[in-house]
């Protein structure tokens, strides 16, 4: 049994799969508040499917890129649960999950870009080929600097329609698709490390300011 979760978007998404069958999945009704919502959602998922935590054999987690705070909630949960249960934890780029869903549901059949909300008027993005193969490393840029006139999958298109007029579904990564990709061995597996893409905001202080 594979537990999948993604906290890289404003919505928490969880899913449980046996082999490639997704038994159940859920997305949070509330946006944000990943820390409050994730653990109860996992507990409810196990309960709804009548799964004992001991039956879990692996955990897959979206590693973003995405807003840091939510991303860390997902990854520390996955790592800790993996440690307690003694099962492997896989990371998957959340943009890859969006790309795979778009291609496998037939929404795109040509080169495209996946763009998600990076806040501060920027997007996290990467370019993909028609079989959802990633062609560029995930990056964070202003929408105008992405320089792409083709189809765009993900929330970035609905946030910046003037820059990305060819917006396509899905908007946010789903743990159900994440579970499917991992179970079907279509995903590029990574360490469960967050893709931050930005350095922490921090400035070294200058000389103490004069008080007299």
């Amino acid at each position, binding site marked *: 049994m594979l537990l999948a979760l993604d906290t890289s978007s404003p919505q928490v998404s969880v899913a449980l799969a046996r082999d490639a069958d997704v038994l159940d999945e859920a997305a949070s009704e509330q946006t944000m508040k990943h820390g409050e919502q994730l653990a109860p959602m996992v507990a409810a998922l196990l309960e709804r499917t009548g799964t004992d935590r001991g039956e879990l054999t692996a955990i897959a987690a979206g590693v973003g890129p995405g807003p*840091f705070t939510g991303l860390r909630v997902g990854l520390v949960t996955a790592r800790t649960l993996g440690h307690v*249960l003694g099962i492997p934890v896989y990371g998957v780029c959340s943009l890859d999950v969006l790309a795979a869903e778009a291609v496998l549901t037939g929404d795109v059949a040509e080169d495209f870009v996946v763009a998600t909300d990076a806040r501060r008027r920027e997007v996290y993005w990467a370019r993909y080929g028609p079989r959802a193969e990633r062609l560029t490393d995930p990056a964070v840029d202003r929408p105008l600097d992405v320089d792409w006139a083709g189809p765009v999958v993900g929330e970035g298109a609905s946030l910046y329609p003037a820059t990305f007029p060819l917006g396509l579904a899905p908007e946010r990564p789903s743990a159900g698709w994440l579970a499917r990709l991992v179970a079907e061995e279509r995903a590029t597996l990574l360490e469960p490390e967050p893709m931050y893409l930005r350095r922490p905001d921090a400035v*070294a202080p200058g000389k*103490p300011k004069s008080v007299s």
Partner: protein
Amino acid sequence: MTEPLVLGIETSCDETGVGIVRGNTLLADAVASSVEEHARFGGVVPEVASRAHLEAMVPTIERACGTAGIRLQDVDAIAVTSGPGLAGALLVGVASAKALALGLGKPLYGVNHLAAHVAVDQLEHGPLPEPCLAMLVSGGHSSLLRVEDVTLGVEPLGATIDDAAGEAFDKVARLLGLPFPGGPHIDRAAQSGSSVYVDFPRGLTSRRDLERHRFDFSFSGLKTSVARWVEARERAGEPVPVADVAASFQEAVCDVLVRKAVDAASDQGIDDILIGGGVAANTRLRAMATERAAAAGIRVRVPRPGLCTDNGAMVAALGAELVARGRDASSLDLPADSSQPITTVVA
């Protein structure tokens, strides 16, 4: 029931702490600190701390279990600091604690960081006197509390109205060219200095201030006064006697802290003062408090320095007390509350 085996997680600032206790017995206290990553910024950078917590979390849990010689499956309950503290940093610990509770099928207690600073002394000196007067002094807080039962709530008597005591140590250390964190460096420098070299002001001790702020603290004026003094020396082209300034500054801080703690205990009719928080590691504070309290017929308890600074053992200690007294556990939707009030012991 045999004494509860509790694992406690602390991530409210820059230390990733995991402690394991059985009742009042400390079995492990593993701490991973990101303090060196913050040193060049002269203070804790929240995002840097949060990133470090994520990386250190599971290895620190493993290390604590190894030291305690237990398996995670043996644990009876998980406790975690749910606040107050840095929001993003707290969240890493809280999420990890929930995953432990979920993965082990054990209860979760989201506890108050300040109450944990009080409870930790049980590991060293046994059950807390009830009531006791707790003085918590660190880089993030300076408060005087009346503690009747640490598992039910504590009553704030006074707190800093500006800088925390530890913050004043950091800022003055910077003025004197000493490294971050300032506390231990000022303490060391002061050993060879004169505490009466400069008569720095004692904040909120004038008769007028005592009417409104009898048990409150203020350290911002003291810090400014040290800065003025140092600048005047520098302008005059004279060397700054670092040891003497450090000793005089430290004397002013400790004097106010101890004076108010003893006054509060006497006022409340309490015979025991308990000191906690990072500044409680200061050697002058420990000595002065013991001496002056004794003169007033009051006992002082201070845990050893390693238990005064932020750590997981204090969280585990409070957790064990909550389990022992049959208090309700938290639910899995427990939030991290960066401004959790001191009156909320379990969130």
